[in-house]
């Protein structure tokens, strides 16, 4: 039986999988189902499940296809965390399991379960993707050949293009958990793929739409769940932040959701005080980025709703009126230094943005591990001799 996947016997180990089963035709509630499989430790949880399917119970339902983390079919929750079953090693899964070492596999969250580990992605994922107008609206006139596009711009957009639509980010999105209508990390990362594509003609329209939608880019609760969940390094939350940056910084959109006001208030307060002034932050986020913001009706409304708490806080010494009115500041010299930094950076014509996805990480000086045995003379020129140009 250890031969089932071609692994040499002896190297394989036993692993116990606890699968969440649900048979919609039975009328029964979901239940746990344990299977013990035998595979080498670096094999995937998917291979474990497939072994259980092949040997014991072919009725286990899981979407899967490529086994190589590119098709996006096998999104599941393993030990409570979202990811791809084919991309999770059995030994890692066992290490992150509860004390009994049993690997728990459940269907993805935020989506209705059809059967066992198979969920319905239509409403929560695909409809959201459709919502962001996910096709290129090409800049006119369309050239005869290719658009001339800066190399870095294309590499940048490749990060969101790398999304395989697996749903892992959507599964555990905490904003979506309380607000199911939130457009969500996958769809918004997809939106960046167009906003960041120099060939697209609708950057302003796309961003206005997504900024003004109360369930759009400003509904993201900045919790990093999607960044952690994504098996392809798409960094959905990072893409959402870029959408915000471009909407506010380039397109100058002032949305009705207080997103721009909040960002502007926060940033300005730190410039003016060096430290965050919470008492100013709230009213300015609603009423506009100035000292007079607190007199705006929208600000007044929210301040009123907090009146009870404010009184309590002041009475208990949590908040002093002096602090609320004047805030706390850095010493003058340091505040000046901070202001100078602001001025220098904000006056740049183009924002300087380092994307580690593109640049990678610096390496300490290290030569690659040499192949055992002497190198032959043919090793010098890496490129095939008669191809044109050089291989970079």
């Amino acid at each position, binding site marked *: 039986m250890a031969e089932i996947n*071609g692994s040499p016997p002896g190297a394989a180990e036993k692993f116990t999988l606890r699968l969440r089963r649900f048979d919609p035709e039975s009328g029964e509630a979901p239940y746990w189902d344990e299977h013990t499989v035998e595979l080498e430790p670096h094999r995937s949880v998917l291979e474990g499940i497939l072994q259980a399917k*092949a040997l014991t119970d072919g009725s286990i339902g899981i979407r899967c296809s*490529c086994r190589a983390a590119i098709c996006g079919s096998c999104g599941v929750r393993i030990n409570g965390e979202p990811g791809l079953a084919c991309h999770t090693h059995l030994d890692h899964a066992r290490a992150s399991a509860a004390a009994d070492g049993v690997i728990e596999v459940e269907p993805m969250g935020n989506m209705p379960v059809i059967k066992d580990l198979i969920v319905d992605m239509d409403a929560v994922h695909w409809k959201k993707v459709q919502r962001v107008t996910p096709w290129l609206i090409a800049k006119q006139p*369309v050239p005869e*050949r*290719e658009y001339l596009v800066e190399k870095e711009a294309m590499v940048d957009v490749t990060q969101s293009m790398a999304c395989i639509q697996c749903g892992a980010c959507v599964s555990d999105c905490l904003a979506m958990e309380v607000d199911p209508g939130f457009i969500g990390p996958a769809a918004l990362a997809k939106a960046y793929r167009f906003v960041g594509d120099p060939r697209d003609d609708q950057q302003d329209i796309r961003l206005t739409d997504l900024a003004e939608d109360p369930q759009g880019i400003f509904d993201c609760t900045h919790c990093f769940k999607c960044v952690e969940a994504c098996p392809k390094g798409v960094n959905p939350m990072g893409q959402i932040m870029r959408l915000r940056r471009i909407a506010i910084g380039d397109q100058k959109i002032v949305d009705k959701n207080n997103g721009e006001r909040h960002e502007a208030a926060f940033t300005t307060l730190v410039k003016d005080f060096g430290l965050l002034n919470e008492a100013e932050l709230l009213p300015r986020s609603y009423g506009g980025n100035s000292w007079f913001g607190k007199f705006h009706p929208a600000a007044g409304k929210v301040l009123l709703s907090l009146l009870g708490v404010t009184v309590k806080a002041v009475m208990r010494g949590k908040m002093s009126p002096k602090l609320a009115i004047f805030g706390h500041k850095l010493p003058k010299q340091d505040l000046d230094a901070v202001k100078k930094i602001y001025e220098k950076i904000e006056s740049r014509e183009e924002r300087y943005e380092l994307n580690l996805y593109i640049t990678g990480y610096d390496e300490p000086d290290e030569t690659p591990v040499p192949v055992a045995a002497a190198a032959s003379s*043919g090793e010098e020129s890496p490129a*095939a001799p008669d191809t044109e140009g050089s291989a970079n």
Partner: protein
Amino acid sequence: MPSHDILIIGAGLAGQRAALAAAQTGSSVAIMSKVHPVRSHSVAAAGGINAAINVADDWRSHAYDTVKGSDFLGDQDAIEIMCSQAPAEVMHLEHIGVTFHRNESGELDLRAFGGASMKRTAYVADITGQAILHVLYEQLMKHHETVDRYEEWFTTSLLQDDDGRCCGVVARDVRTGRMETFHAKNTILACGGAGQAYRPTTNALIVTGDGIAQAYRLGAPLMDMEMVQYHPTTLAENGILITEGARGEGAVLLNSEGERFMEKYAPNKMELASRDVVSRAEQTEILEGRGVGAERSGIWLDITKVPRKRTLEALREIVNIGKDFAGVDITREPIMIQPGQHYIMGGVKTDVNGATSIEGLYAAGEVACVSVHGGNRLGANSLLDTLIFGRRAGEHAAARAATIGMPRATDAQLREDSATIDAIIARDRNGSPTRPRRVSEIKQELGDTMNKYVAVYRDQGGLEQALEIVKRLQEESKSAYIDDRGTVFNQDVLGALELGYMLDCAQATVVAAIERKESRGAQFRTDFPKRNDEQWLKHIDISINGKDPARPGGGGVGGPQISYSPVTITQWQPEERKY
């Protein structure tokens, strides 16, 4: 019952491209896929797509490389069409938004690929298939009002009317188990290859030869089924592909003595010779004792030669694959690979418009054999093939649809298929006389058999063994049992149907391999090691015995029957093939 001008089965590159092309003519179009379209195996294609877009390039050079790559079995009229239309197709992809990598001047960058006399492979890092597939799906989302999508519907049979024309399909909604008859004036098969008949394979679990087998069962001839490509660089354990793009960027192959052995086999192109040449070279090194790894069954692929920054930019996916599936950092150390089953050049025989010999039935992509790849496919030509012939099939079918009425079929086939499925579900695991086997067991034995006897090196004895085993497995599959008795998302029963398809494809492959008594392209017979143009410069066609496409229902369902068809030569006479 749904009725469309064009019904496309399979939503990979070929299928989606056909749908797009057909929709643009105003025809009513439906596309059906047993998985969500973006899960189609096209998504795994990595390296790039060939086109002579460089102003210094010429499509005729591309065409010649393709003809040579095919070991002169490719039909040159089809190859000319593919290569001459390639530049326009790549530009079309660019205009609908594919995020092709750029060079320093902002133009499409081109990388080197196997068998190419000039750099002509446009690419998106090493996720080109994914990038194109997702962009095509974006277009289908854009056209959601004109293209009906049937996602997670499994086709169980092609339909044929009394005059022998294909008039649609019977399909099962995987989610609910509901069966439905779909009428269509034209049906385009775009179901991909049959790699899962081999173990290991680079192919996804869904690549089970559905379209090839269904067309075959309907009476359409299959062509060049013996031509099965083994990709030179697949991971030993699970068959996962390491793209040729790595070698295109400068990676080299080394044996246990640390030598770049390709110098012996292809001194000119080295690692970028055609895939069959490279796979055979590797296999020879392994057989002669210069393999690497604990069992000396692999070869080193050394990507450390490529500047690290370039690797991270253009080969990011294989960096991830190396790390996740082999525990290797490819920027620091070599990774062990071996030849693995990857692609089938053979398939349903079509003309240059994707039309099969059955009226109303088209095929495009890996499921089809036009043939543009002949005995061996060049890397980055498959993405091209799917798009060019997917488009042509869509357009041709749309034109045909304008001239005919909507065919009608009875629900006889639906009732038959429903009964078949019920019968499979009801199979008794304790049935007599012999102990019935599990579907998964039979599939595994099939895969091992094909990988043993019908791989890089073949001979009569081995092939005959394989044929015997395949026939036995076909018998056993008739009583093979499954576990799932349910209706909702019953993957088990679909697996049983897929097993039947794989066995049919395997049988055709073995029969054709036995028939071709020469070595050409991917077929290497140790008992007939030379290419023999005099006797074998022709295609081998396989049709189901006794089935005459012009007389449906006539003749029994029998085994494969062999015939031949000529190779179309336009410009390039066969010559000795050296890399």
